[in-house]
């Protein structure tokens, strides 16, 4: 994973436009957040291998970055993205890491299932 290069990520988003894709979307505060600090509200969500197709997609912000994908009947949105896997050729793997390197948010698209 390396820090997001918005130009490169935009090009990768464009290559996935109007295709049937598998989506992994995730956000987490961590599984031990409330255990270590009872004042914290612990939450996490993930959807893996949802089928999506988007007609318009872009990366926005100065970093951390946002990504929005306009689908037929709605949207896919993620904020806080910092890194992407530049070695991937078919898939787009993006994540947001906090100052400790822990994953907070992930947005991934792939023609084949994860």
């Amino acid at each position, binding site marked *: 994973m390396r820090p997001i290069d918005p130009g490169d990520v935009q090009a990768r988003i464009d290559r996935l436009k109007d295709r049937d894709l598998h989506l992994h979307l995730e956000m*987490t505060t961590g599984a*031990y957040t409330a255990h270590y600090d009872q004042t914290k509200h612990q939450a996490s969500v993930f959807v893996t291998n949802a089928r999506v197709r988007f007609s318009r997609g872009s990366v926005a912000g100065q970093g951390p970055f946002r990504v929005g994908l306009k689908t037929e009947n709605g949207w896919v949105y993620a904020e806080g993205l910092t890194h992407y896997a530049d070695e991937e050729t078919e898939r787009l793997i993006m994540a947001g890491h906090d100052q400790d390197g822990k*994953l907070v948010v992930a947005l991934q698209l792939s023609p084949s299932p994860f």
Partner: protein
Amino acid sequence: MGGRLVNNILVVLPHPDDEAFGASGTLAMHIRRGARVTYACLTLGEMGRNMGFPPFANRVTLPQIRKAELEESCRAIGIQDLRLLGFHDKTLEFEDPDVVDGRIGQLMEEIRPDLVITFYPGYAVHPDHDACGAAVVRAVGRLPEAERPAVHCMAFARGCEQALGKPDVVNDIRPYLEQKIAALQAHRSQFRFGSLPGRGRMSESEFADWLGTERFWTYRWPT
């Protein structure tokens, strides 16, 4: 059970690295005394949010990286038999209990352990820990009372000592710290040894005592 010899141990835990914190010294001790250990790890911890320090893994590569780390940890401890059961991290409590219990039941039948190590259901913080412990307890509970192996459970929920009392199995594993530290260090995507929980909150000697002591509660069957 610190002094008693056991021959066959079945360890059932949900995530790679669960063995390292609370049970690696105990397992190394039993193995040194001749025990054979089968470790059934239910998931690959594929939803972990630690990706290395600095990050070297991502959501896609993490499962294979954690599998290799787990294998390294098992080698460090001396565990002879590692089984990967292939469930998905964070989903154990939503699986069909018959499927999970059935897999554990099959292993029980095959291995006939005289000791089972897992998490204490309800007192192990992470939903996968609790679901894993609950499945083990159900699978063992199907056996006639006289045939049930001892089930030693790890617990660390807030207030667990108020609910369960003091742990009845307290192992001094300081002679096996080398194996324990090697097991912890094997899980390099998950934590740095220098920043383990407790470090910073404890003095160095408290930390050494914490690391060198492993605590279990023998599961108490409802009467």
